């Protein structure tokens, strides 16, 4: 008969053996690093693709060495075809949005630091956590396979608009098995993220240490928590959408394919489907996805800024409430991606209003960051520079959002470089700055070694200036009518823009090259860096109370007790101008 033992839900024995320790690990820290590593692989692949695109745009007839080996049809003689340009674009977007901007700031850092920051030994469901990563990894492999199949990667963009994405190989190269692989990959990715979000929510609700009330959690913990709530609902919608897309493609149904389509001289055997349905389902996920990318970055940046400023924000609570309202409003704005889709113009107005409303919490957050910086004696490190850079990118990219949120202006700017510039700055590069800030900040904790600060600052300045050189001109290009997704320019009204495109391409090549400084710094510091102390930045949250790197069960079997809010800076403590969260000492202000 069964004999009971009181068993702890989330405690697992120290793993033995290489595979259990490093590959199929249940440890949230290893899983976090795996996500980060996968994001690193994806971001450098995605960057290489953008290089190819930028290169082809301005030197359309130049041969690119070795590209023919990758795709004989896509780049005959090393010259990119217009279709292959779209394939590169699709893969760039998909890799960056899903496998970089979701994986690194949310799944990567979140997995590593959320349990530590709330004083837990691990996630609530370590097995789900492991599954979450490996499903995501398989999703990555499935997507990556599309490069090597004869059909080539899909050409329908990361948004995979139907019916182009739904009809199959008759629609052109990449839309046969390439698009199938895309749909399967994204479905798997959704499953991985759902498991991850479930874990984040349960862990935050149930596994907090004694004294760790919700409002005592650090801002980044809050950001991951809110993000997981968004992710849970967003990916729960994208998954059904992808399943219906797969059925349209493979089982002959007509969810998204209208009647009467003739492609490659063949009448498609579909009828009655609604292409708008795909856009609705996709953007219902797609807009919250933007916040899945940016909220963790906002959390990380707040965390880093406070530690660097040595004083609390004007109001951490308002930052948290603003993040909540952004999360809430993110569900009401998806239609602003569809102003030109033929949707009822009245509903455009309805979507425009909450879109403009979102700028209020976003502006409040920005003002809090800037207001808190006033008079702060900030410690300039690579981490704090990237945090400041984030604010700059977020503001510069966000301002163009005011224009795009209004249907009348968006009709003119839609599908131009203005939009591309807007989202690359506000969610792409800004989130990347958040990731980089987090990397420079937490690398000592994660690896036990310090990163090189000089290289870090060099990396920042080239990236910061380079990014502005790349994406600010995009706005100008958009206003003068440069349409996105064109693979080259004929000698028409766009011809005078080619010199500007050349400048952008050179800036992209230089900025991209600067990322190898970061990669070198990362790898070199991992093995040769100066050993890191327990608390190199004089932080107050729980991750700085444990050794660098943390032991497998985080707190060495002890159970931390939390006495203070997360950011007790600018006070007289026993260690200096701060008091750790788990320190029982009384706080003397002044």
């Amino acid at each position: 008969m069964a004999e009971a033992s009181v068993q702890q839900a989330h405690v697992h024995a120290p793993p033995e053996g290489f595979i259990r320790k490093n590959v199929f690990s249940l440890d949230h820290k290893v899983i976090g690093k795996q996500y980060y590593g996968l994001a690193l692989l994806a971001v450098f692949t995605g960057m290489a693709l953008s290089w190819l695109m930028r290169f082809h745009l301005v030197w359309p007839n130049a041969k690119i060495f070795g590209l023919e080996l990758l795709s004989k049809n896509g780049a005959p003689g090393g010259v990119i075809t217009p279709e292959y340009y779209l394939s590169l674009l699709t893969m760039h977007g998909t890799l960056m949005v899903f496998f970089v901007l979701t994986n690194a700031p949310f799944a990567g850092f979140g997995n590593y630091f959320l349990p530590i920051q709330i004083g837990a030994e691990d996630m609530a469901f370590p097995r789900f956590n492991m599954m979450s990563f490996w499903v995501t990894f398989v999703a990555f492999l499935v997507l990556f396979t599309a490069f090597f199949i004869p059909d080539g990667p899909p050409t329908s963009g990361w948004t995979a608009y139907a019916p182009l994405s739904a009809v199959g190989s008759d629609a052109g190269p990449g839309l046969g098995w390439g698009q199938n692989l895309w749909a399967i990959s994204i479905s798997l990715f959704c499953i991985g993220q759902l498991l991850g979000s479930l874990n984040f929510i349960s862990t935050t609700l149930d596994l907090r240490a004694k004294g760790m009330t919700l409002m005592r959690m650090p801002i980044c913990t809050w950001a991951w928590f809110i993000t997981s709530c968004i992710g849970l609902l967003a990916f729960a919608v994208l998954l059904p959408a992808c399943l219906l897309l797969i059925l349209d493609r493979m089982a002959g149904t007509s969810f998204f394919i209208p009647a009467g389509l003739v492609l490659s001289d063949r009448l498609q055997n579909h009828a009655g489907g609604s292409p708008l349905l795909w856009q609705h389902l996709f953007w219902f996920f797609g807009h919250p996805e933007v916040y899945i990318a940016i909220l963790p970055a906002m959390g990380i940046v707040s965390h880093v800024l406070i530690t660097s400023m040595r004083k609390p924000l004007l109001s951490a609570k308002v930052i948290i409430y603003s993040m909540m309202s952004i999360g809430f409003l993110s569900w009401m704005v998806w239609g602003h991606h569809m102003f030109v889709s033929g949707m009822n113009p009245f509903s455009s107005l309805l979507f425009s209003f909450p879109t403009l409303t979102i700028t209020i919490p976003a502006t409040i957050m920005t003002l809090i960051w800037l207001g808190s910086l006033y008079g702060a004696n900030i410690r300039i490190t690579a981490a704090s520079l990237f945090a400041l850079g984030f604010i700059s990118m977020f503001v510069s990219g966000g301002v163009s959002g005011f224009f795009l949120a209004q249907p009348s202006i968006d009709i003119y700017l839609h599908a131009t470089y203005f939009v591309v510039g807007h989202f690359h700055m506000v969610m792409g590069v800004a989130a990347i700055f958040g990731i980089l800030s987090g990397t420079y900040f937490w690398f000592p904790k994660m690896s036990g070694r310090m990163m090189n600060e000089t290289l870090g600052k060099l990396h920042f300045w080239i990236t910061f200036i380079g990014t502005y050189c790349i994406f600010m001109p995009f706005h100008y290009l958009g206003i003068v009518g440069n349409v996105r997704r064109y693979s080259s320019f004929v000698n028409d009204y766009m011809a005078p823009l080619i010199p500007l495109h050349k400048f952008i391409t050179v800036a992209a090549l230089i900025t991209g090259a600067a990322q190898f400084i970061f990669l070198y710094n990362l790898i070199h510091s991992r093995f040769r860096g100066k050993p890191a102390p327990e608390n190199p930045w004089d932080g107050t949250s729980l991750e700085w109370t444990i050794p660098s790197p943390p032991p497998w069960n985080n707190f060495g079997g002890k159970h931390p007790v939390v006495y203070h809010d997360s950011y007790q800076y600018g006070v007289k403590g026993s260690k200096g101008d701060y008091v750790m969260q788990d320190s029982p000492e009384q706080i003397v202000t002044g």
Partner: protein
Amino acid sequence: MIMSTTTFPPTPAQAPPSPPGGNAIKISVRAKPRSPDASRSGIWVGIFAITMSFAAFTSALFVRQGSGDWTHLAVPPLLYVNTVVLLISSFTLEISHRTIARGLEVEASALRSSLRWLSVTLALGLTFVAGQYLAWRKLAAQGLYLATNPNSSFFYVFTGMHGLHVLGGIAALAYLIGRLTGSRSAFRLSTFDATAIYWHFMGGLWLYLLLLIRTRL
């Protein structure tokens, strides 16, 4: 005896002593608020996500319905039989659950009874899935396949997705039976709680889908 003042974590010394007879099962009951057992909240989070997925399917149905090729689908009567089977299985599971959830220590007879009702639930669950499959066969016999018309597409999608989720519940039931019969297994009541909540939710979800199928397809 319920550990109402459990410290975090319960060390072996604080665990209740083994019963002298050795034929009773002890269940670790974690008392709030310092409960480290997350399956109870986890299952609600999961249910939230599943609800969202089916809301997405539903909205797809409403949008797709607007096209001109919407027809009508005669619901196979077998679906009603399946519905009754699934609802009864919720009752049998609840009997099993309540038998074991009464206290920290469960007598061997109560455990046997609980196991019996759990097995009945499992059998009913499998019957439901088999019944749904038969309903598919009946539709196919009428020439209605997945891609025949939008109504049949949605029918297969709804029943198929629900069936997959029920299979997940069946796996959880089988796991529970394994834990309860295993010789030296640790058994957590929260796993049972979570399974029961999930199973009841499957019943509720099916009623909703049946209503949708009945009125819209």
